[in-house]
């Protein structure tokens, strides 16, 4: 391994250096108070390969990612360990030396391209700026040429016009490809990709994943692909490391990790990922990951682990080899069973009379027409999924049904009775009969009201229940969503995302609706929490004979929750079929495309 002067100008094609790859040893990042956020992180990424780093929110995956560029969030610092790239330990570099490395030898692709690009600067200029400040190539002409080349490499137009656009003039997928072009423009030795496809539609996501895979090989650089989505990671990574509560709990080649996990957390994580083939039942992980400072002294997964024995609580187990190229941090790794592949009985939708009937519905926002005369029946007691990408009109349809959007034409009827469009024109009974759970549990609960207040409100307003009776029923409802009744006194900010969404479900169900509209209710949640919530909704459907309209963009999730699927594209239903038939015999080209481009865990 040769030592590179980080301040030396780069030659035109510095592929020469990329042989070494990345070695991370004992990385520790802590708060100013000395509380570890991540510790003892070891990673190896050979040049030309992709390591997937999987973890749920709060696991420290972004902290690890930015630490590889020698940076941290405000209030954190790199406290120990080494990050070795091209024979140089990044943790020993000065701020000035680090700046020379960032964007030139190590680059970073952010999660959200809509905010990561400077809104006031043309995109070509943003690529050029990075080349300029690292003195790329032999001069201005070489740099101008590299900008065009970089756009070409990520499949963006190479004509000068495109480079002159501002970020807001591009689609989300194009913006992310600009970010990737910036990251690869200087032929770096390591690229850190932090959830680069999370905000994108599946078809765009697959384009971006292809681009990343191709560039990593072409450039012979090492890539760290960070994501909460094991399915996405498994399609792009050669190897996967699983991060839990700030430490790596398992590391193995992708196939092996998914098929033969040796840490209980990995095994449960695999089981929580919706399977596109529908062969596995979706199961969540009870409880939540401990936050920094509140981590147990022993194995950090021990409190949630079904295999835990007394010894597990006695000290953090080391990360040890359990098979070839396979490391796990568990003393019972031999007893971990792979995620069960059991035959699910696909439930067939009953040929019941429709509870909700939508006929010739068109909706618009001002002059923009969003839904174009669509019709849909939702049979009583079933779950119908509305599947579509962003902009397909799925949320508008859900909102119109719930009475939240009035600028519409056509007919809606519930149990044979015609529904007016605005909720103010509906009777109290109809308003109580349709409940709605919103996408984002962080903004759908009033932060100034206690949980009990929020949950009890529909009952007070719609059913006129007051006093002790109200408190009793709120308590009961909270118990039923597996939050205990003492949650009634808490405020939303004291709750995790999963808990908040359960409060939202409790609020929706307390007035005993017949139709529950779920608008992307799991998209802000981790997979383990998503599986729990989906299980909960399923329970209610059986027990209360509830009818569900489940709005989502996630086709794999659809297979695990719905009996019937309506595929929405550009404001029209392009396919409407029982779930099993849709997955085994898709009719519309768009459905087939979705099925092909969606990453699946078990191949």
């Amino acid at each position, binding site marked *: 391994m040769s030592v590179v002067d980080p301040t030396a100008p780069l030659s035109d094609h510095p592929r020469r250096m990329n042989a070494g790859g990345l070695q991370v040893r004992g990385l520790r990042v802590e708060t100013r108070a000395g509380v570890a956020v991540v510790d003892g992180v070891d990673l190896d990424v050979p040049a030309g390969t992709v390591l997937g780093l999987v973890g749920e929110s709060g696991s420290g995956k972004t902290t690890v990612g930015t630490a590889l560029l020698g*940076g941290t969030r405000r209030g954190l610092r790199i406290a120990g360990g080494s990050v070795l790239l091209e024979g140089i330990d990044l943790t020993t570099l000065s701020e000035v030396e680090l700046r020379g490395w*960032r*964007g030139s030898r190590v680059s970073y692709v*952010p999660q*959200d391209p809509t905010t*990561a690009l400077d809104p*006031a600067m043309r995109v070509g200029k943003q690529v050029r700026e*990075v080349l300029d400040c690292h003195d790329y190539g032999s001069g201005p002409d070489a740099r101008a040429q590299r900008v065009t080349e970089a756009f070409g490499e990520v499949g963006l137009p190479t004509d000068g016009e495109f480079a002159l656009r*501002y970020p807001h003039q591009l689609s989300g997928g194009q913006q992310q490809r600009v970010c990737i072009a*910036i990251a690869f423009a200087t032929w770096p030795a390591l690229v850190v990709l932090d959830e680069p496809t999370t905000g994108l539609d599946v078809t765009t996501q697959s384009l971006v994943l292809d681009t990343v895979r191709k560039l990593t090989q072409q450039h012979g650089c090492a890539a760290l692909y960070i994501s909460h989505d094991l399915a996405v990671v498994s399609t792009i990574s050669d190897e996967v490391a699983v991060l839990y509560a700030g430490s790596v709990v398992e590391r193995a080649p992708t196939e092996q990790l998914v098929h033969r996990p040796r840490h209980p957390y990995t095994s449960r994580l695999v089981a929580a990922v919706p399977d596109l083939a529908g062969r596995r039942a979706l199961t969540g992980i009870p409880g939540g990951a401990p936050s920094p400072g509140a981590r147990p002294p022993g194995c950090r997964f021990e409190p949630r682990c079904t295999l835990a024995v007394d010894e597990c609580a006695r000290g953090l187990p080391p990360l040890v080899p359990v098979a070839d190229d396979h490391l796990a941090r568990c003393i019972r790794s031999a007893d971990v069973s792979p995620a069960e592949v059991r035959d699910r009985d696909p439930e067939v939708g009953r040929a019941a009379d429709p509870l909700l009937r939508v006929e010739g519905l068109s909706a618009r926002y001002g002059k923009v027409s969003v839904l174009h005369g669509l019709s849909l029946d939702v049979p009583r007691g079933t779950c119908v999924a509305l599947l579509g990408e962003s902009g397909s009109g799925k949320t508008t349809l859900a909102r119109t049904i719930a009475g939240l959007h009035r600028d519409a034409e056509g007919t809606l009827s519930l149990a044979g009775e015609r529904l007016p469009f605005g909720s103010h024109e509906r009777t109290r009974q109809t308003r109580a009969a349709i409940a709605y759970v919103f996408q984002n549990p962080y903004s759908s609960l009033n932060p100034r009201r206690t949980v009990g207040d929020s949950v009890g409100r529909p009952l007070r307003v719609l059913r006129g229940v007051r006093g002790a009776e109200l408190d009793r029923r709120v308590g009961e409802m909270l118990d039923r969503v597996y939050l205990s009744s003492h949650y009634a006194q808490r405020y939303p900010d004291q709750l995790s995302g999963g808990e908040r969404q359960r409060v939202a479900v409790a609020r929706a169900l307390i007035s005993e609706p017949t139709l529950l509209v779920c608008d992307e209710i799991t998209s802000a949640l981790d997979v383990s929490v998503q599986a729990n919530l989906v299980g909960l909704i399923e329970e209610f459907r059986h027990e209360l004979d509830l009818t569900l309209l489940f709005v989502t963009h996630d086709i794999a999730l659809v297979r695990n929750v719905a009996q019937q699927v309506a595929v929405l594209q550009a404001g029209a239903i392009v396919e409407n079929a029982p779930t099993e038939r849709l997955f085994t015999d898709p009719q519309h080209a768009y459905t087939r495309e979705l099925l092909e481009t969606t990453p699946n865990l078990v191949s």
Partner: protein
Amino acid sequence: MALGRLVGRRLAVGTVILFVVSLLVFGASLLLPGDAARAVLGRSASPDRLAVVRAQMHLDDPAPQRYLAWASDLVTGDLGNSTVSQEPVIELIAGRSGNSLLLMAIAALVATPLSLLLGSWSALRRDQLADHATALGTLVLASLPEFVVGIALIYVFATGLLQWFPPVVSTTMPVLEQPSVLVLPVATLVLAVAPYITRMMRATMLEVLDSDFVHQARLNGIPERSVLWRHAVPNAIGPVAQVIGLQLAYLAGGIVLVEFLFAYPGIGQGIVEAVNARDIPTLQALIMLIAAFYVLVNLLADVVGVLTNPRLRTGVA
């Protein structure tokens, strides 16, 4: 294109605003105690003389008719004659507005860059001593009325401790021939408007410095100086331009007190004199002038806001 439409629309709205202001100004001068004829002739005027002068000044005509006459003269640039000196109002206020514009222009040219720099500097030292000191200092200054600041400045720099600058303006020679008289009024105005702009710039810069694209620029190895000047500041200017516009418009009103305090021969002092002398035509003209200034400055702020925001400047492709 988009900008041209915006300017056109704002100019149209501005015209409507000026029309409404003209109604208010005219209405208010009807309500003023005393009457113009008596103001011209003095207390001892005989009823006959008063009646004659009233007729000359059309004071007995119905109000709408008088408004129309006044407004149409105004539009054609005829501001009438002063009821005190009988000179054309336009001659009276031309020199004064020049003086006031000079004062405001210098104050704006000093206050704007000063507060932008101070605000950015403070934001970069977030939660450090310098930042807290700036926050406290600007808060104190923002809560002091201009006349207090002005009197304090006069006491410190003119009459009391140090005698560096003259406390009042000599009326015998043009302002430009005695530039030292400008220092204290300019300082007072700067201290009146700079704190708000500084605080706004600090808040906006904090937000921008914490945004993803600034983090990303740092992760791309862009030198800190470029991060600041090419990414952070251009994105902060837009929102701050609105506040600068409001503050400059405020200068046009704030100048009345300051000019009075320093006996500075500008439109502010002109207003005070016109009110005292019941010189209605002069007063009306000065107020219309200030209103027009407000409209223009706000338009300018909107234009800067649009120019610094590509989202507003260009359409969505």
